[in-house]
């Protein structure tokens, strides 16, 4: 990994065992007689505070790797850690938040109540959680829609609400599985840059699964490319844009070069 990344504590990712680490992770799904080897010897490192994307052919195990970090499935071999702790401990300590493509909302709760859900589960007092939720709703640009029901919002707005909900617990890790995959191109790029701003403000570590090469470039310090199933990380491409990124990013000649490099890595 690029050693020049900012590290608040002056430690490298190695010594602090901070960030997201997967070591030789293997994952075999068994459903009856059907056996699917989703991951094999998969290793990944995302230093604390940095942003990484995972791209690869569909079905190669990107979601599986993310779900291992989120403690939704257990790897068959190898191990995954978040800040040196197991996914189960990380979940109990609420150090990560997961945002999925479906922007899962509870249809009977208003947007404000949906955003408050994580705080409510964490037994934060009603006043405090209202305050935090309102703050996050403002951050994602949903002010004025607090009292709407999820069904009354568009997909893009629901996704903003899901991001707001994820941010309420001030997670150190944001795990995102194709969060903008269901959105149109324009909405998607707009949300990309807003997520960028939010990441800059919160300092969270990001692991993003995406099928969009440009999204990966915009949102990453490093893009990891996975092979077809059983998935492994076959190539890591550092993106040297630093932290001051804005919409002019696409005009940078390096953008096209990264794009070409990643396209080649993907399609061989």
């Amino acid at each position, binding site marked *: 990994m690029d050693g020049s990344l900012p590290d608040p504590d002056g430690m490298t990712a190695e010594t602090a065992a901070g960030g997201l680490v997967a070591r030789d992770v293997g994952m075999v799904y068994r459903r009856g007689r059907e056996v699917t080897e989703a991951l094999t010897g998969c290793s990944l490192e995302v230093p604390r505070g940095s942003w990484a994307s995972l791209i690869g052919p569909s079905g190669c195990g990107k979601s599986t790797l993310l779900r291992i970090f*989120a*403690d*939704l499935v257990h790897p068959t071999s190898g191990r995954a850690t978040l800040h040196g702790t197991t996914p189960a401990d990380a*979940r*109990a300590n*609420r150090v*990560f*938040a*997961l945002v*999925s493509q*479906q922007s*899962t909302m*509870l*249809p*009977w*709760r208003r947007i404000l109540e949906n955003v408050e*859900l*994580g705080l*409510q*589960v*964490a037994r934060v007092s009603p006043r405090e959680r209202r305050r935090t939720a309102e703050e996050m709703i*403002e951050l994602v*640009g*949903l*002010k004025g*829609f607090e009292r*709407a*029901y999820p*069904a*009354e*919002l*568009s*997909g*893009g*707005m629901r996704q*903003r609400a899901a991001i707001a909900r994820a941010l309420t617990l001030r997670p150190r890790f944001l795990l995102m599985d194709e969060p903008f995959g269901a959105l149109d191109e*324009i*909405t998607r790029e*707009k949300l990309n840059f807003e997520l960028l701003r939010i990441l800059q403000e919160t300092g969270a570590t990001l692991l993003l699964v995406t099928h969009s090469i440009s999204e990966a470039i915009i949102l990453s310090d490093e893009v990891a490319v996975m092979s077809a199933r059983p998935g492994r990380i076959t190539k890591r491409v550092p993106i040297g844009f630093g932290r001051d990124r804005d919409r002019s990013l696409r005009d940078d000649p390096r953008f096209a070069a990264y794009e070409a490099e990643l396209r080649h890595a993907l399609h061989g």
Partner: protein
Amino acid sequence: MTLPEDVPLTAQPDILPAMARDAAALPPIPWHRLRRIALPLAVLFVALGLWQWITASGRVSPLILASPLAIAEAFGRSGAEILAHMGVTLGQAMAGFAIGNALGLLVAIIFVHSAPIRRAVYPVAIGAEAVPVVAVLPVLILWLGNGMAPKIVITAFLTFFPMLVNALRGLRSADAEVKELMHTLSADARQTLWLVRLPASVPFLFNALKLSACACIVSSIVAEWLAAERGLGHLIVVYGARYQTAEVWATALAATAASLAVYGLVTLAERLAMPWKTR
């Protein structure tokens, strides 16, 4: 902060065709509402007219079928009596309804939290549903006397099963994604019950309540039929024995009204309970 890029359709009147917009400017005439009330009313009046005509023409003995007018007169004569007995029947029905539904929901909650208990008890419960309770009613009356208790027990028994089956389905109806969300939020079983399972089951619970809204009055009446000193069922037996056919019909109509009222209240509660569906 900029405005969200995508505003819901309702906030964009411009995309409505011009004609629709003009129509929307006028106070709308709720034709569909009028039709929804007027058509059934018309059918009802035609049926009543036919009924009156058949009975007045002497084709059917008034002992078998009283005319609508005779039934109206019976209401005038015996309305107070019918109303008093309706109170008893409604009281029993509502008590049984409340107990049966509460128990059904409670057992469903126990079932979703313990697979072993569910596997052991659910088949037995389904088997018990097949018991024709009316057949064991005489035994119940032997045990519990001919007061309100056996009626309440029967009604509770009959409302228990629809609630158990529907609540079980409703409590398990939350999507896999919602369950994963609660898992990543480290929610415990109680939080999942209150924040997800119960709210998700609300439409299912109302299905059960609507199913048993009418059934609870019927079961209460049937139980009164066999042995009671009060209630609409008892009244029907008494009027029948006296060949007061018009009174029998008036009582039956009163029971119908009671059933409809309970059903209507449940439907109203359903709307109030699910504002996210009716907005």
